């Protein structure tokens, strides 16, 4: 392939990536956008085998190894993406991001080994940058995966001397980076990689469960920048464009997500260092709550004029989307006004709940976004909270210093009656007690969301 043809094809792939991001920003074109991105990646991967570098065509000595490795990656990646449950998708994205960061770091380590004495300062800097940031992205993403999969605590982990530790770690990373750049050597580079991996862990540990999506988005942007830096060292323009696009759009997206959650980006990332680990008020102490039977709930719903369903992650875990829709249909048939109040971060990530309810064919017009539904709670007879907690917790407004303080919430406390379907009194993902559970107008129905809803549905039918 001639150099011009190669560059032209590379340019086409870059344009496809831009169109992909553009398409993904609007609901109508999102799926096509994703397909264009995949096409771009396919083109880029094919043409690299015909790469006409300065030293002639790409040597194909290791072709068997390369194709074998791609096959292994496909065999792992495709079934993983196909079989993951929609509820577990956020951690899947975190994991994919992590392996991308790991790949970038490995590429940079090989580049570093190959760098000769004649390498320019910029090339050495870009290589070391990729090793550091790629490793941070890798280990940080693994920790976010463990948090979202609930393999470890979702609460902020505050280590003793955590702040000192992380600054010492950062200083060590910078120091060793300088050493690695001034005299090329493989063992200091491995020390640097180890320190960077540690930094990724320390960086994510203090972040609370509810803020984890913001961190995934940030690490995603980081990985993009490492890809751009690798592109600079390898003189592969396409990698520069693709990596920078992801880095820039990822940064914007991180900010938008933080805004949707009412969090300052800085506060999210560094808040845990400045604030003390905060215990919920009255944790462990027994306080009276009003729990009801499915029949009580059915009666409350049956005589309501307006019901707002607030779905949360608990609904998704119980796979109760279909049952909740059945109940909503029954209520609509009785002439009751039914709407779903969707918090922007209901579920585990912004937009996650929309994906889950769409899966259950809930009519689009019943899904009402937070800004629109909030003014209507005062005229709502029953707010039915299904497996949600943090997104309706008034502590976000009333308790400065609590981990979700400042996050916009659904104002269910303004409605005449509140029903919580919950598995237990356990606090939500952010680990904070919800005062609303003890409110006199609140009724609790304990149990798995799907089982509870099924009982409510049959009680409604017999009324």
């Amino acid at each position, binding site marked *: 392939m001639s150099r011009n043809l190669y560059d032209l094809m590379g340019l086409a792939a870059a344009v496809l990536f831009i169109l992909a991001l553009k398409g993904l920003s609007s609901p109508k074109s999102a799926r096509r956008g994703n397909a264009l991105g995949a096409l771009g990646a396919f083109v880029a991967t094919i043409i690299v085998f015909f790469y006409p570098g300065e030293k002639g065509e790409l040597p194909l000595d290791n072709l068997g190894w*390369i194709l074998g490795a791609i096959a292994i990656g496909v065999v792992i990646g495709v079934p993983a993406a196909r079989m993951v449950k929609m509820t577990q998708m956020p951690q899947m994205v975190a994991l994919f991001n992590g392996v991308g960061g790991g790949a970038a770091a490995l590429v940079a380590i090989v580049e570093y080994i190959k760098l000769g004495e004649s390498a320019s300062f910029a090339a050495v800097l870009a290589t070391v940058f990729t090793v550091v940031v790629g490793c941070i992205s890798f280990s940080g993403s693994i920790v976010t995966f463990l948090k979202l999969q609930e393999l470890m605590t979702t609460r902020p982990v505050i280590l003793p001397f955590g702040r000192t530790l992380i600054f010492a770690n950062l200083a060590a990373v910078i120091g060793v980076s300088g050493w690695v750049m001034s005299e090329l050597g493989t063992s200091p580079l491995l020390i640097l990689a180890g320190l960077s991996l540690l930094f990724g862990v320390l960086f994510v540990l203090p972040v609370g469960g509810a803020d984890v999506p913001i961190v995934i988005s940030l690490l995603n942007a980081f990985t993009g920048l490492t890809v751009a830096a690798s592109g600079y060292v390898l003189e592969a323009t396409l990698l520069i464009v693709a990596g920078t696009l992801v880095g820039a759009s990822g940064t914007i997206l991180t900010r938008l997500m933080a805004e949707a959650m009412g969090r300052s980006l800085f506060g999210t990332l560094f808040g845990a260092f400045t604030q003390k680990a905060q215990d919920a008020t009255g944790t462990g102490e027994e306080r009276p709550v009003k729990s009801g039977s499915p029949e009580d709930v059915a009666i409350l719903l049956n005589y309501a004029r307006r019901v707002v369903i607030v779905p949360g992650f608990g609904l998704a875990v119980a796979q109760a989307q279909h049952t909740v829709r059945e109940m909503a249909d029954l209520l609509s048939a009785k002439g009751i006004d039914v709407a779903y109040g969707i918090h922007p971060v209901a579920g585990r990530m912004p937009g996650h709940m*929309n994906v889950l309810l769409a899966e259950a064919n809930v009519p689009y017009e019943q899904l009402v976004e937070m800004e629109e539904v909030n003014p209507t709670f005062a005229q709502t007879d029953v707010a039915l909270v299904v497996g949600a907690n943090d997104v309706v917790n008034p502590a976000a407004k009333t308790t400065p210093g609590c981990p979700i303080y400042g996050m916009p919430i659904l104002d269910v406390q303004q409605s005449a009656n509140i029903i919580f379907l919950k598995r237990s009194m356990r606090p939500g993902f952010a680990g904070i007690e919800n005062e609303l559970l003890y409110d006199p107008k609140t009724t609790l129905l304990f149990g798995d969301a799907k089982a509870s809803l099924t009982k409510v549905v049959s009680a409604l039918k017999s009324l």
Partner: protein
Amino acid sequence: MSEAMALLAIFTLAIFVGFEVVSKVSSTLHTPLMSGANAIHGIILVGAIIVASHSHTSLELGLSIAAIILATINVVGGFVVTDRMLEMFKGKKKS
């Protein structure tokens, strides 16, 4: 313009394009957009293939083969999972 300056120009322009294309996106699409962007950076696969082809020692080859496997998981898995998310949005519109 020197090669390095040309690359710097590309980098700078790409930053602005990246900012521009996603500046107005509804919160509904945050998750798929993040996932799609995540798949795009899997294109580090291209870099991994380049370094693997120039690998002479078994250490270099081993590291770059590992990089290829990880990058392939990122790019292929990323696009597939994004498509699965968006498939659901399509179903919603029909009903």
